[in-house]
């Protein structure tokens, strides 16, 4: 044995299934430092997905849960999850391994495991970074929002009407206002964002003074509403769903405004135009400042 034959006193366990977990716990309890390497983002493996185990029909979760917690809390065990073993050198007693750790995009030191990010994913749901400091609203804004809250104070399920009125007043849901509502109604900010991002008619960014809804219902579609959308966007220089730079218009596709007999139809604010022709668009839009 050469110079690197000194025993290291640490063990690497590859694979965080029930076997890896049990081995790690046994080794850690007997005084070894254990590195438990797992390819997926969490340990547990197949057993954590089972209902019962063969042949005794024991409850799988009841068996594995204490061990999962044990692994997580054991001072001698370091979990390396979301990582792969790339190479191994050395000999029994002293190995050097190369591990590739995939990015988690979450700071696992700070994460408390509250699960709020899970509720709000995937993708379309935008999360603002949550700041802990007190919400500072100007007196004017506070009066407006208090007024709205006052109206719905005794109503069961008042979050939706409150958000609708705020959205109507500001033409979008301003971040500070949402946080203020969250503290006032004692509804978690993630729950509010969950609602705010679910519905099409709420917006988290300021919208134009006038909302142009091009009906994309079946009848309008059959009668050429796509061309209307294309022409409107060209006319105003925006993408579908976009807002003009001067905040004059927001152009959106609507899912049927119930005016199918007069297709293709568009709705600007609360006014409906039926049998719209491409060449009418410029004239109609001119009426809105």
């Amino acid at each position, binding site marked *: 044995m050469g110079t690197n034959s000194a025993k290291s006193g640490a063990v690497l366990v590859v694979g965080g299934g029930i076997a890896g977990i049990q081995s790690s716990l046994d080794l850690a309890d007997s005084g070894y430092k254990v590195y438990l390497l797992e390819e997926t983002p969490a340990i547990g493996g197949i057993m954590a997905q089972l209902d019962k185990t063969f042949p005794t029909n024991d409850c799988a979760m009841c068996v594995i849960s204490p061990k999962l917690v044990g692994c997580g809390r054991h001072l001698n065990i370091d979990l390396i999850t979301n990582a792969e073993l790339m190479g191994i050198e050395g000999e029994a007693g002293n190995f050097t391994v190369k591990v590739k750790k995939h990015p988690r995009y979450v700071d696992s030191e700070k994460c408390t495991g509250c699960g709020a990010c899970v*509720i709000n994913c*995937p993708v379309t749901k935008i999360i603002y970074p949550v700041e802990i400091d007190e919400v500072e609203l100007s007196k004017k804004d506070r009066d407006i929002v208090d007024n709205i809250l006052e109206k719905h104070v005794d*109503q*069961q*399920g*008042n*979050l*939706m*009407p409150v*958000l*609708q009125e705020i959205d109507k007043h500001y033409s979008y849901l301003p971040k500070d206002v949402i946080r203020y509502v969250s503290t006032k109604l004692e*509804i978690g900010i993630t*729950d509010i964002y*969950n*609602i705010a991002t*679910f*519905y*099409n*008619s*709420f917006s988290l960014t300021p919208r134009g003074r006038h909302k142009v*809804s091009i009906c*994309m*219902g*079946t*009848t*309008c*579609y*059959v*009668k*050429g509403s796509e*061309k209307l959308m*294309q*022409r409107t966007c*060209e006319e105003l220089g925006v993408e579908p769903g976009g807002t003009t730079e001067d905040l004059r218009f927001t152009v959106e596709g*609507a*899912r*049927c*405004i*119930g*005016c*199918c*007999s*007069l*297709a293709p*139809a568009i*709705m600007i604010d*609360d*006014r*409906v*135009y*039926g*049998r719209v022709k*491409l*060449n009418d668009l410029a004239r109609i839009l001119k009426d809105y400042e």
Partner: protein
Amino acid sequence: MSAMNAKKLDQLGNNGMESLYPEQIRISVGMATCGLATGAQAVFDRFEDELKKTGFNAVLSKTGCLGFCQREPIVDLFIPGVPRLTYVEMTPETVTDFMDALENRKIPKDNLLCQYDKELLLDDVFRKYDLTEKQNELSGTPLYEDIPFFAKQQKIALRNCGIIDPGSIGEYIARGGYRALFKVLGGMTPEALIEEVKNSGLRGRGGGGFPTGLKWEYTRRTEAEDRYIVCNADEGDPGAYMDRSILEGDPHSVIEGIIIGGYAIGASTGFIYCRTEYPLAIERLVIALDQAHENGLLGENIFGSGFSFDIQIREGSGAFVCGEETSLMHSIEGVSPEPGNRPPFPSESGLWEKPTNINNVETWANIPAIVIKGSSWYSSIGTEKSKGTKVFSLVGKVRNNGLVEVPMGITLREIIYEIGEGIPDDKEFKAVQTGGPSGGCIPSKLLDLPVDYERLAEAGSIMGSGGMVVMDSDTCVVDIARYFLEFTNDESCGKCTSCRDGSELMLKILTRITEGDGRPEDVDFLLELGEAVTDASQCGLGQTLANPVLSTIEYSRDEYDAHIEKAVCPAHVCKALVVYSIDADACTGCTLCARNCSAGAITGKVKEPHLIDSDKCTRCGVCYDVCNFNAIIVE
């Protein structure tokens, strides 16, 4: 609020009668969304100006939608002693002539559609008109029931739409309104009421088709301190708008239905969940609810019966899935509006875990009529398993667009070719899409299909909320299937993998086919995928989203094959598969197309034939639409 009793109801009704059939001339303008979209406001304003200017003695009022949306703006004229008359396609200019005629004591003849020799009021009382007096002047004017659009219709849910002023509770009562509520609270037990609704055979008009009486019974049977009633007015299906029309034209019929339902199941609170895209419907509902409150038809101790009930309006915020009942209830509660598990059904545990009964607007509007005229009358209409009438929105490529209420069991051919008077421009009928994104396309070989819940389901479609979009040979079924998948993919809440990812994958394949990149195995894969999504999804949205694809494949597989094998779109719709060119013989060089082409793909000198550069052409079709000489060729 003042207490309501029979005497006061009669008095309100008499007032309504006087305003419906006054001593002087009454002009009413149809001011529902469809009327307004074609300029009813301008017509109304002109009437107002003319009346003010001339001092002519007439009442001007607003009504809802008569259903004949194709010919809006519609104006109704009532002259004492003369049959009621309906005028169509009015404009501010024709109003002037109209008023001139009236001032000269003549009946205006321009734009006159029909006359009524009698009108049916709800409680079997006919208001007859004397036809002798002005007979000469009106000879040649068809009767209402002789107009093809109206001939086969039988109006129950739409009984007041387009006739009464939706802002007048008196006019609603004059036509028999709130009598059903009076009858129920005056001596019917909830059990007898439920039995009556069960016997009528009424089934949910929102699309599910569950027997209404049975649903009420289940809700009543669940032990609880309180129960809720919900009216589903989240009419999200593109192509259907009967609920909007009822709410805009006759909000009290829905409110009365809900109060009766509340009594039947023992609820004290009702919610109307209306989509935000219907601002006018919400406005009229708010007014109607206020009126019901003022007159003691809502609130404590209605009709002195000890029964108290109240209704709140909740607005949606643009999410299609909220039309699904569990999702809708979550939305009212203000929590994440994803669909929940059933069972427990809402009748056991609904809003705030209390038993809840949900019915659609049209269902509620039918209730007062059933109570007044009896279950045996209602069940005498329709087919064996589908009783009564159903409102359809007949739209798309059909001559008469509009809302039609027909007895169940009528054939598609009667609806499209008799009521709708066929396809415009002598094009060929291709298919009719029923039931919105959850429904399917029914081809021409099934035109003689009697319309009821079972038959439509057998044909691979559904009754749904009653949208009926007619398609002609210019419509590509693959493109329509892709359109619906785009819709459902966008509206899928993302809870079930099968729906979220399945719709994504189906959309991807359909898009590929419409772009000419379809693969031979695609159609079979779509069938397999469609079945999987149907089986594995939790709510109605996922369970039915494959229907438009499956039904178009079943009936028009050749069109799919043309796209895939020959890269040809037979209807010339799919952009990637068509080429635009100009017929040099027909082109007059008017430059209209070149000026309208946003891609700058059209070149040519004035008065010389133009050319399309197919590399630059985005195939938007604008040139085809604007050309006055049919010189644009699409291949």
